[in-house]
């Protein structure tokens, strides 16, 4: 989801998404599937779709999940709630984000797994600022590896 150009995941990004490749190649986990959820406009819809993400992971008996969201601002309303909805059902989450958890527009007690991947801090001096350079702030292989390593630690602590 590209709210701004630098966060934009193009069709080509989806076609060779580093997150999917890193998780599907790893020898410690089974990547069972990718759950695609839209970030809706209305607040009540945000809570509904976020809740359904939590329910889907519960029904799947997931051991863990890596979340990704390439927007910010109001997108973090449903993002933060989806993370909480998964965590409160016992599913550990690592959530990739353009900004650190402290900069989310809403807060809850389940955001300890937020991993910031913003790449233009040296240029802009502020996490999450738009640079208008296509895909400058998108998830790369290293981000995906960090997220998976963090998730493995979280899953180990739970079990």
């Amino acid at each position, binding site marked *: *989801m*590209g*709210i*701004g*150009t630098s966060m*934009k995941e*193009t*069709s*080509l*990004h*989806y*076609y060779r*998404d580093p997150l*999917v490749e890193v*998780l*599907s190649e790893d020898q*410690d*986990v*089974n*990547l*069972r*599937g*990718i*759950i*695609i*959820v*839209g*970030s*809706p*406009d209305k607040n009540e*819809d945000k809570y509904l779709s976020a809740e*359904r*993400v939590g329910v889907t*992971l519960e029904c*799947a*008996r997931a*051991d*863990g*999940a*890596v*979340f*990704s*969201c390439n*927007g910010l601002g109001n*997108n973090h309303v*449903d*993002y933060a709630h*989806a993370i909480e909805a998964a965590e409160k059902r016992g599913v550990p989450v690592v959530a990739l984000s353009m900004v650190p958890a402290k900069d989310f527009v809403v807060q809850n007690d389940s955001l300890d797994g937020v991993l910031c991947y913003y790449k233009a801090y040296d240029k802009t001096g502020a996490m999450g600022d*738009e*640079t*208008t*350079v*296509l*895909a*400058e702030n*998108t*998830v790369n292989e290293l981000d995906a590896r960090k997220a998976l390593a963090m*998730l*493995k630690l979280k*899953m180990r602590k739970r079990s």
Partner: protein
Amino acid sequence: METGSRLTVRAYHVTDVAYGTENRVTVDGHLTVCKETADEILKAEPLIKSIDIRIIAPDEHQQHTNTIMDVIPLSTKVLGKVGEGITHTLTGVYVLLTGIDESGRQVCNFGASDGILAEKVAWGRAGTPLESDMLISFDVVLKEGTWADRPGPEAAHRACDTFCQIFREQMKKFNGYKCTEKHVFQETYEPDRKDVYIVKEVSGQGAVYDTWMFGDEPCGFEGGHSVIDMGCMPAIVTPNEFRDGVMRAMD
């Protein structure tokens, strides 16, 4: 243990792209682009004022571009549906969809990437071409005021998809033995491993802030559904469906 779907992707590397009297791609990597095709496509799109199809070589990046709406791989199904069977894809060339509204508004949410192309792309990312790749620019001018409602940007994507389909139809007939790369993706499941999922939150709030899924072709528009029309409810796909282009970025 092997389980679920198996996907074979055969890649064909394109070595040269040139203008010609027809749109044609050959199995040995020669691609020609016919600029006049734009006029044909335009006839079916009342919301589009004009379309310009251009080839951009690696040494031509010091030129103006409108905001980049999408970077699209040229891929097609040869056997089976997206996520299984056989896919043919081109490497070394990508389609760049760019757009502006007649009034001068760039067709994007915010943070438009219009400017000098060389400076407006983080080259070599998962979602962007290499600096050495050939680009086919599909530049759309939408009629005034149409960028802000979903039918406007959708028209730009549909027109571009119509153009891509011309090459896809030819790629379906490529000899499988003549590919430059072949990748086989077999879904697996090991009982002693942790079961993990990826959750991707994608755009679903309106024009230039949309995501489509389940197109007929990899990263295709035709046959696809907007996540907005799907109520932004979670939909689960297999890793093979995802890497075979079940998604189309519309933001």
